[in-house]
């Protein structure tokens, strides 16, 4: 019964296609896919909201398609990759957390490329920037969830760092740096970002 009424309400909402959020006494459940709706029939891009309405003895559970405001249009809508659509190709860095946070999960991992629609080079660049941002401590709320009652064996030294290319445990100390013509340099940043726009006079040094 409830399923049939839900399907009917979904069909009516598609016919109208514009449904604002109704009323203030409505109990709203955010985005729960109760069952798999046939995707061929539903072509809208809106986010669905499950809305429960109590009218005396009857309860109507409706899946309303919210009309979310489209937001600002990208300056280059024909491009395939979101970064190219917004013309941000060589302009972002590990510090642009607002941009990077759109491509990560809540535990800090990157979302798959087939979902985000990034081209492979940009996906790699975003991955490196996200790694550097994590190591710099710029994404404090996107840490992986540790199991309950987990106590770390030794307290890790809290050191500030930035532009870290390699993972902390994988790097060995350079005991012999060598002579000037064959010096073992330390890696800073990532070569993937070497094409970034440089507004200053000094170029970006990757080997310190």
């Amino acid at each position, binding site marked *: 019964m409830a399923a049939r009424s839900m399907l009917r309400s979904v069909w009516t909402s598609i016919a109208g296609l514009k449904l604002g959020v109704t009323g203030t006494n409505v109990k709203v459940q955010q985005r729960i*896919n109760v069952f*798999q709706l046939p*995707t061929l029939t*539903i072509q809208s*891009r*809106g*986010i*669905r909201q499950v809305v429960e309405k109590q009218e005396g003895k009857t309860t109507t559970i409706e899946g309303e398609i919210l009309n979310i405001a489209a*937001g*600002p249009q*990208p300056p280059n809508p024909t491009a395939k990759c*979101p*970064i190219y*659509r*917004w013309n941000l190709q060589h302009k972002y860095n*590990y*510090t642009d*957390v*607002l*941009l990077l*946070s*759109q491509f990560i*999960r*809540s*535990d800090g991992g990157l979302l798959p490329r087939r*979902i*985000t*629609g990034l081209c492979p080079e940009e996906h790699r660049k975003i991955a490196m920037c996200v790694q550097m941002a994590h190591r*710099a*401590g*710029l*994404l*404090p*709320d*996107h840490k992986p969830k540790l199991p309950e009652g987990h106590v770390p064996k030794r307290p890790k*030294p809290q*050191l*500030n*760092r*930035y*532009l*870290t*290319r*390699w993972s*902390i445990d994988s*790097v*060995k*100390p*350079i*005991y012999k*740096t060598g002579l000037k013509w064959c010096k073992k340099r*330390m*890696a*800073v*940043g990532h070569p993937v970002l070497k094409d970034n726009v440089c507004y200053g006079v000094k170029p970006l040094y990757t080997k*310190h």
Partner: protein
Amino acid sequence: MSSFSRSAQQWATFARSWFLIDARVQPPGKIATMCAVRLQGKHKPIYHALSDCGDHVVVINTKHIAFSGNKWEQKVYSSHTGYPGGFKQVTATQLHQKDPKAIVKLAVYGMLPRNLHRRTMMQRLHIFPDDELPDDIRANLTEELPQPREIPRKLSEYTQEEIDAFPRLWTPPEDYKMK
């Protein structure tokens, strides 16, 4: 200043000032160049190597220094005690744990000219691992220098309005269970 009297102008030119540098989340190399320039007196037009025109520099928060790249693990500080088998090599992390002032001190020492004035200039450098300064030094401070590196903002430091003002670059497909 042209409005100063002769004695006041003389005093303003030749007095030794005290600079303050906050090294929080700053690279120690850049801090050290700023210190070395001011300890030698090279920031003054009246500079001469023999005229002892260097100023005092106070560096605070050296415990919170930030190295770029993987230098905490890769950079090695070597020393020899003079005795056989006394060659010691310590990584930057280990040295920082043992003494939080050492990294900045060694960096400045290496940037000063290799002459007998170097030791006097090092005596005029005051390094503190924390915010706490003794009162007599705090009373002497004249100027605070701007930090060389711009500190990036964490995601938690952005207000919700700024996060909302940033446009969504891509829309997720409807049937994808986000995060």
